[in-house]
């Protein structure tokens, strides 16, 4: 493949990582959701690009799924939920933004180191993709770990899924089963979370997981 296509793919994947970083320093829920939408859009682009350069047409489907569901449906839905449940709009962080960013950088470095040990005869694009995907996954986890609100945790989780999609599309000729499963799992995840939000809404005043933790199975 020529340098340009590689650079574009590289750019998009790197952009995805960048957006993940942006998520790390959001402190308002809406902003976070918007950034996530952006994340999804970039993902859609990179997937589409992958589809183009691998001319694997089924990947367009994935791109479309990403665009429609993650960039539009889910953010809108989350906005709705937040309004409906009247969740207070700012994010309570467990760890300060600064340390979180530092940790994020460390994670990216770690994933790079890991993936660069992979023997080079593997397709370089794939290697790059994997490195980025791994860092996105770790960053997503980091978001889940450092945020207290359930919604932001959900968002973090979905950005993690985005990383998976990136990895899956980077993997040449990976059969459709994967994309479907990803979309499938996201769908399930979203539905079930929605179900839960409703049930929880019935019983608690917020979906802040901390409130749930008061109802732990065993009381101290």
């Amino acid at each position, binding site marked *: 493949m020529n340098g340009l296509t590689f650079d574009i793919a590289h750019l998009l994947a790197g952009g995805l990582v960048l957006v993940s970083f942006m998520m790390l320093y959001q402190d308002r829920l809406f902003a976070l959701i918007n950034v996530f939408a952006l994340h999804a859009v970039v993902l859609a682009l990179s997937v589409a690009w992958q589809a183009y350069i691998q001319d694997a047409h089924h990947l367009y489907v994935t791109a479309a799924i990403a665009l429609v569901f993650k960039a539009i449906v889910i953010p809108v839905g989350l906005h709705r939920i937040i309004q409906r449940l009247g969740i207070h709009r700012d994010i309570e962080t467990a760890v300060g933004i600064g340390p979180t960013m530092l940790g994020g950088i460390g994670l990216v470095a*770690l994933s790079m180191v890991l993936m660069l040990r992979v023997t080079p005869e593997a397709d370089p694009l794939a290697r790059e993709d994997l490195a980025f995907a791994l860092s996105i996954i770790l960053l997503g986890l980091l978001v*889940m770990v450092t945020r207290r609100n359930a919604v932001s*945790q959900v968002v973090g989780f979905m950005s993690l899924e985005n990383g998976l999609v990136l990895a899956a599309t980077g993997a040449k000729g990976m059969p459709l089963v994967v994309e479907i499963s990803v979309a499938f799992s996201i769908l399930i995840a979203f539905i079930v979370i929605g179900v839960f939000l409703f049930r929880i809404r019935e019983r608690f005043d917020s979906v802040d997981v901390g409130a749930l933790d008061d109802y732990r199975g065993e009381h101290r």
Partner: protein
Amino acid sequence: MISSAAVLLWGVAALLGTAVLAVSESRRSGSGTRLIYGLTLGISAAVLLVLASRIANDPVTPSTAALPLGLPWIGAHFRLDALSTFFLAVVNFGGAMASLYGLGYGRHESAPHRVLPFFPAFLAAMNLVVMADDAFTFLLSWEFMSLASWALVMAHHREQDNARAGYIYLVMASFGTLALLLAFGLLSGPGGNYTFEAMRAASPTPLATAFVLALMLLGAGSKAGLVPLHVWLPLAHPAAPSHVSALMSGVMTKVAVYGFIRVIFDLLGEPAWWSGVVVLFLGGLTAVLGILYALMEKDLKRLLAYSTIENVGVIFVSLGLALAFRANAMPSAAALALTAALFHVLNHSFFKSLLFFGAGAVLTATGERDMEKLGGLIHRMPLTSFAFLVGCVAISALPPFNGFVSEWLAFQAILQSPDLPEWGLKVMVPAVGGLLALSAALAAACFVKAFGITFLGRPRSAAVEPAHEVDRYSLTAMFSLAALCLLAGIVPGLVIDGLSSVTLPLIGSRMPVQMAQPWLSIVPIATSRSSYNGLLVFLFIAFSAAAAAYAIHRFASHAIRRGPAWGCGFADVTPSSQYTAVSFAQPIRRVFGTFAFRARETVEMPPPGQTGPARLDVEMHDVIWETLYLPIGKALDFATDHLNHLQFLTIRRYLTLVFLFLVVLLLVLALWP
């Protein structure tokens, strides 16, 4: 021709069948009890007959049997050699006696359905342990034995103490089993050759040998009640019904001794000389501490349990001597020591069962185990008290009874020890001899107390009033045991010659033939050095006592007048002025208590002229429990308290755990060369 091992397996099967039968029978308490104990009695007797024929014909050549059970690619192996024959005899005789006793005693059982099914199972398990010829079968039966006895300990589970006793017992038991498991793991090697043949063939490294010895001391020692692993014993043995206590004390501890002998003397091969030192030290410590605890005890059954610990100590002292001699290639001395140990095993199974039966009789008659509430039973239960007295004399190692013979043999073995080359042994052996003598003397004191407080004097509480003689089954059991105590005491040569077939394969030597000696006397080495003749001693005592009595009744006055006891001018009316168990032990507590129990006495005397009562407070500590076991509990509490926070984290924190774990693993990979 079916091998005798196979026959015995049928016996075991019959016992297990009885256990199953008991599950349904136990509901009908009266007839069910009689049926079950009758069956166990019959089976044990039959097994004893088989063993007897075997001993009579050819005890040495092993008879084996194998079943396609247990570990699939090995199967369950059983082997009947001289050693196991001897211990099987001990087990089944104890079982038969306990069943006989149970025929009467079991009728007073409040919860027969919690005793009857497990009693035959317990017997079967002990038989299996002794017959097992591969590690898996051995351990399975061993732990099954613990389990069955645990169920029997829990028979009266409503009492808090029993539940606690059962708990400590089973935890200690499985600790021991794990130790044995590790020992067998070492013996069998990575290949997993779990048969005893393979272990005999293998020659472990010195280090492995040392480990195996240590693990056996932990495993078998914890079962036998070796200090400091004895703590469960005085809790568990008394908690069970008395005939089961008799089995546990008189027989199960012997099965543990069997395990030790089997592995150390049979499977392990040549021991290092210091192994003798270790065993001697532990044995001596156990003997003295055990009997001291017994002296301080005022619960009759717990006293007996502690004295079991002492006797186990005596046995292990002899075993340690045997090890030392064996390591220094002194086979005849080793044979002497081992014979002493085995003889004591037999004796202890006799008189400890007898004593527990007596305690059970007292328990049924008065409902009391606390000696402070007993007294004067000799008038209400003359036969029981006579049998119990015989037991006391025998266990106090007094001639002409059997207890003395085994202790005498042990002393004779100790006198062989100056030829030992190692300094450790040179210093250790006489010291241990002193400990042995001390424990024997203390045992006498202890059983003077046990008998004197329980049966003599005046009743200390109303519990004694309704007491009456127990049923004939119990009496038969007790008296046959008492007769055996005397018999083994006056014709010890018979037993010793029987044991020679056990020591011969293990040590490669035996004691000189005893029955050839004139007047049935026993001679460890040579007549000029030392000999003992129980029969003549017995006859002399009988003769001179008779002569004296005759002379008295011939020449002296026969007049007898009954009158109140002479209290040196102070006519005391209340029985509470008698010596109690605690006060009887007070002088000895003064001597030994301070270092053994950190005992402290505080006396508050009212000032002169005032008539207020004086108070004497005695504060005693179970040093071993407090220094060894309590800290473990504390550490456990501490650890669990702190770890328990992990149950109460928020989801985010749990995620953090996962996340950190992932990152750590990735880091490891990244830094992987």
